[in-house]
Every structure is written in C-alpha cells, then in structure tokens.
C-alpha cells in the first residue's frame, strides 16, 4: 500500500508539537535540548516528504544542512549548559531567573 505524503506531514507535525510542548514544560535543561532536537528532526522529516513529493533532491540536501546546523548548535548549547551548571549544581531551567521583576 502506498503511504501518502500527508501521512509523513502529519507525523512531522505531531513530532514538532511534542517537541514544542516538551520545550515549554520540561524543567531539565538536557531534556529541553532533546526536545529541540526532536523539533529539528520533525522539520527534517517534512523536508524529505516534500522533496519526495516534488520529485527532486532539494529536500534531502536541505535536511543535510539542518542536521549540520543542529549538530553545531548542540555543541554550543551543551557547552553553555555545562558552563552554567558548573556554577550551580541544579539542572533546572527555572533557576536562571536573574531577570525576574
């Protein structure tokens, strides 16, 4: 049976939403990063789906770009995270509240 493009898009949207919700709700910084990765991958999926649907390789090229950027971003992000959380022992995002009015 042929699975339509829509299914892929639906899955992508679903994954993206789960990622967003995770970013907003989870307090553990590493889990937040994982959710961000989830969002990126969801977008990758939708790129591939559209590429296949358009019959070109553009989608796959873009997915490569995204993966590279994601990797770089993770490196930087985890670096910052480690630096911050070396100071304090907690990994909760809520503890970074110096701008609280």
């Amino acid at each position, binding site marked *: 049976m042929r699975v339509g493009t829509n299914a892929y898009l639906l899955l992508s949207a679903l994954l993206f939403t789960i990622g967003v919700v995770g*970013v*907003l709700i989870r307090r553990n910084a590493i889990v937040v990063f994982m959710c961000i990765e989830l969002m990126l991958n969801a977008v990758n999926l939708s790129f591939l789906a559209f590429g296949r649907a358009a019959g070109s390789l553009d989608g796959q090229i873009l997915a490569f770009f995204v993966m590279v950027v994601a990797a770089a971003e993770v490196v930087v992000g985890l670096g910052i995270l480690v630096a911050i959380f070396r100071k304090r022992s907690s990994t909760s*995002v*809520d503890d*970074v*509240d110096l*701008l*609280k009015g």
Partner: protein
Amino acid sequence: MLLGRRLGRAAGWLATALVAASFVVAVAAFFTLLGGAADARTVVLRGYEWFSAGDLRVAFDLRFDQLSAVMAMVVTGVSALIHLYSIGYMAGDERIATFFAYLNLFVAAMLTLVLAQNFLVMFLGWEGVGVCSYLLIGFWFNRRLPVVQPGARLDPDTPDETQEVWAPPAAKKAFLANRIGDVGFLIAMFLIFQQLGSLDFDDVLGRAERGVFVAGGVARVGAVTIPGLGAGAATAVALLLFLACAGKSAQLPLYVWLPDAMAGPTPVSALIHAATMVTAGVYLVARTHVLFEASKTAAAVVVVVGALTALLAALIAIGQDDLKKILAYSTVSQLGYMFVGVGLGPVGYAAGLFHLVTHAFFKAQLFLGAGSVMHANDGDTDVKHFGGLRQAMPLTWWTTVAAWLAIIGFPLTAGFYSKDQVLAAAFSHGGVGLFAWVVGLLTAGLTAFYMSRLVFLTFLGEPRWPEGRHPHESPAVMTVPLLVLGALALVAGVLLTGGGLVGGPLARFLEPVLVGALPAPLEAESFAQAFLLSVLATLVAAAGLAVAWWLYLSGRVDWLEQRRRRAGAWRALASGLYVDRAYELVTVRLDGAVARMADLFDRRVVDGAVDGLADAVGAAARRGRGLQTGLVRTYAVGVLGGAVLIVAFLVVRAT
C-alpha cells in the same frame, strides 16, 4: 531717628520746636491769605512731577486755601501742644526718640493730606497717617498693658476686670480697618480718573461749579451735575470716598479699631485719635463736597451714618469703665456729629468743620488730662479706682472741667457753639436732617451723661484708690498744654462765632471754599429758631448731667449694685453691643471655617487625586511585574504565541 540715641530727652524738645515752627508758618500763611480778597484766597504750588503713565500725570502739587489753612493750623497747633506734653509723659522711655520721630512723621503725613492738590497726593498723606497710626499704637509692643476690657468674664462682682492686652493686635486692627476704607478711596480714584481723566482738584472739583443746577435747590438727584460724571457714577464715587472716611474716621461699621487703639500711649490717642487723623475723613468730605452735592443719596448716607454712629457710640460709652475707652467712644460719637454737619450740604459745612476744630481742643485736653490722671495713678485706667482726685491734681481738674463743659455743650463754651450749630443746621435742612437732629439731640443727652459720669467718678466723691498710691499733679511740661487747651475749649467758641449762634467769622472765612453748586443758604434759618434749638439742647444736656449726678455723686444710689442687678444690659453695653464679637465671628470664625474647608479640600481631594493616581500606577505596575518571571520557559511561550499569531495572520490573509 538718626541722632535719637544720643539726643535722648532732647529729642523731644527738638521735635516740639519743629512742630511749633510749622505752626508759626501755618499761622503766617493764614494771615497772608487774609490779606487777599475773599474769593481769591487759594494758593496752588505745582511741585515736581511724581509720575506719568499714559494719560495720567501726577505731581506733588500743594494747595493752600481757607480749608487747608484751618486744618493746617489746627493740626500743627494742637500737635505742638501734644509734643510738649509728650516730653513729660514719655520721659524715661528708652525709645523716646523714635516716638518723636513717629509723631513728626505723622504730622508731616497729615499736612500732606490737608495740603494736597490732587487725590493721589492726598492719598499719600492718607496712607501715611494710617501707617504712623499703626506704628504709634503699637509703640509699646514689648509691654503688657493693663486695659479694662469687657470679656466673657464680665461680672461686676469680680474685683478686677482688668485683662492684659498686647499693643500689636490693636495696631493691626487699626491698620486693617483703615485699609478696608482705603479700598474705597482707591476705587473712587480709579472711577474719577476713568470718567474725568484727571485727579487734580481743580479739574475734578472745579468742574461742578460750572455745572448745571436747578435754581431754588429742589431736592432731586442730579440737581447738581458734574459734566463727565453721571449721577450714578457720582453716587458711587461719593459712597466709596465715604467708605474711606468710615475707616479712617471710625464711623459705622468700621469704628471698632478706635477703642482698641487706646493701647497706644495717651499722647498718641490725643493727637491721632481725637484731633487729627480721625478728622481726615471729615476734611475729605468737606473738600469733595461737590461730589456729595451731585449725589443726594450719598449725602443722605453720610448724614444717617454719622447720626447713627454718634448715638451708638454714646450708648457704648455709658458702659465703659476704662477712662480712655470712654473717651475713645466719645470721639467716635463726636465724629458722627461732624459727619452729620458736612453731609448736610452748604447749610452744614461750616458747622461740621467748626465742630472739628472745637473737638480737637476739648478732646485733646480730655485725653491729655486722662494721661495726667493715669500718670498719677501708676497707669491705672479704671474709673472705679479713682475718686476725689481733684484735691490731688487741681490743675488737671480745672482744665478737665473746662473741656467737660465744652463737650456737654454748656452755654458759651466752644462745644456749645459748634454742637448747636450742627444741630441747628440739621433741623433746618429737613428730611434726613430732621432725623439727624432728633438722634443728635438724644446723643447730646447721653454725652452729657457719660462725660459727667467720667468726671464725677474720677475727680469727685470719695477716694477709692488702692493703698500705697499717692496721686500727684503732673509736671509743668504736661500741665501747660492742658491749660492752653482748656482755655481754648472755653473761648474758641466765642472767638470763632463772634458770640452769635449762627454764622460768624469762621463760617464767613470758609464760605468761598465750601459754597456748593447749590444756591442754598450757608446758615440756619433765623436767630430765633437757633436760640430755641440751643435752649432745647442745653436742657437735654442738663438732664443727662442731672441723671449722672443722681446716680454717681448724690450717694443715694449704689451704682455697683444697680449694675449687678442689670448684668445682662451692662454686659451688652460694656462689650460694645457685641459688635466686636460679631466681627470676630464673621472674620475670624468664618474665615477660619473657610480656611479649614479649603485645607480639607486640598488634602482630601487634590492630594487624593494626585496620590491616588500615583497609587493606581503603582498597583498596575505591581501586577504587571508578574509578567517578568525571569523564567526562560515563560519567554519561550511568548515567542511561540507570537509566531502562531503571525502565521495565522499570514494564512488568513492568503486565503
């Protein structure tokens, strides 16, 4: 004031010499006037220009005519005597030089007032005497002065009704009451300038003489007209000027400052509040008489107010125990007579001014005599503590007798002539004059009563003064003026009227100045009528004297007991018929209430609004702060929300 501290007592002699010199000059000038023809006796001196603004040009112009001459001679003459007296009275006071400086300043201001040729220079003098009055009343500002005051505790059984009074409040009261009147003067000047374009007497007052008037003097508003000044404006100006007179010359309703002004040294009371400053109002009306002729209403107001004031003050005087206060109310009362005189029109001008002159003599004598009595009694002013002083102070006694006879109108004294002339003028004027005549007659009786009471209680009867007091006669420096004034009180009448009951040299001298535009006779109707009226007045005065004798001297009535029995009435009279209380209610209380309301409003409403606004902003901010959680998650939600909105917007727009 410059050399004062070094001159000390000599300052007094210097000041007196200067004023005496002024008097000599005044008399000399007077004789110069006499040399000229009867209707050409005006000298106008144009002085330096004071200021000029737009159409208004005011200079220090002086005018010397018959009216000014009379006033100047009275002012400088009586003043010189009072200066002499003060040398003795104020001896030992450390600020004596300042006192004489103020006195001389006062005389200078008063002379400016009577010698002015335009309203503004006159106002300069007017204000000047007001300021000097304030300075002099408050002269002993650092002393407690025992004055017999009616107060809430007014009970004849209380051994001592003396309360202590500070001078400064009295001085302020005097100045404020004057000021209220000055507002009238100012507005009148504004009106005059607005209507007539000038403040010079020749321009303003001379015009009426060229006005149109109805022959026969029919009493009709506008019978005299001043070109450029409508009947309504003339009334307004005249009434405003009279308001100024009410303030300066202590008439209803602004007389309340005069009794309180007795807190000042007695020579001050004699000079300012008997002989000169308070007569400035009478002079003003006389000088501007054409305005009062142009407005029958204003003239009637002057007569009625004068008559009522005379009566009211005489009533209050009956209830006073303080020597100076009796004299103060007496002054208010006699001033009422003067205003009746000058308010009656041509028939009364000379009479009113004549009374001014004689009153200056006998009232000054009475005040100086009172000072002599106080001097001998350690400054006590309560007549209940006197009695039998005539043996101790014969000179004071006899001179006071002279003045007393004059003020009650004993035949042939100066006061007799002047008072009877006023009453005769009132009677023959008819209309409102008749009312004034009745009131004046009644007041004459009351005057005789309270003045006799004063004399009896102070000089006759049994001594009532406390132990340890040795009343003695005053030094020559004080008794000489008493003698001069006493003599004048007796003979001035005969001299100035030539012995007759109507007219006389004074009236004839003043006639060219005081003839109004109304062709009315300057004197009362006939000798017979005047004689009958005089007899009537004398009888009324004799009745007053008799009652006083019976109550206070005959020993048949315990007047203290009577006073206790009629405590209510006594309290009313003694407190000046509660007029001061009424004023206090209106000004102090009402004002205080208004001020408190304003404060409440300011604090609650205005401050409330401002503070409330600030608080509201603060509350809003406080709630808004909640947004700044500092949590990254919250901000992420915000970003998400914003992104959703934008995408939705774009999608909706594309479809």
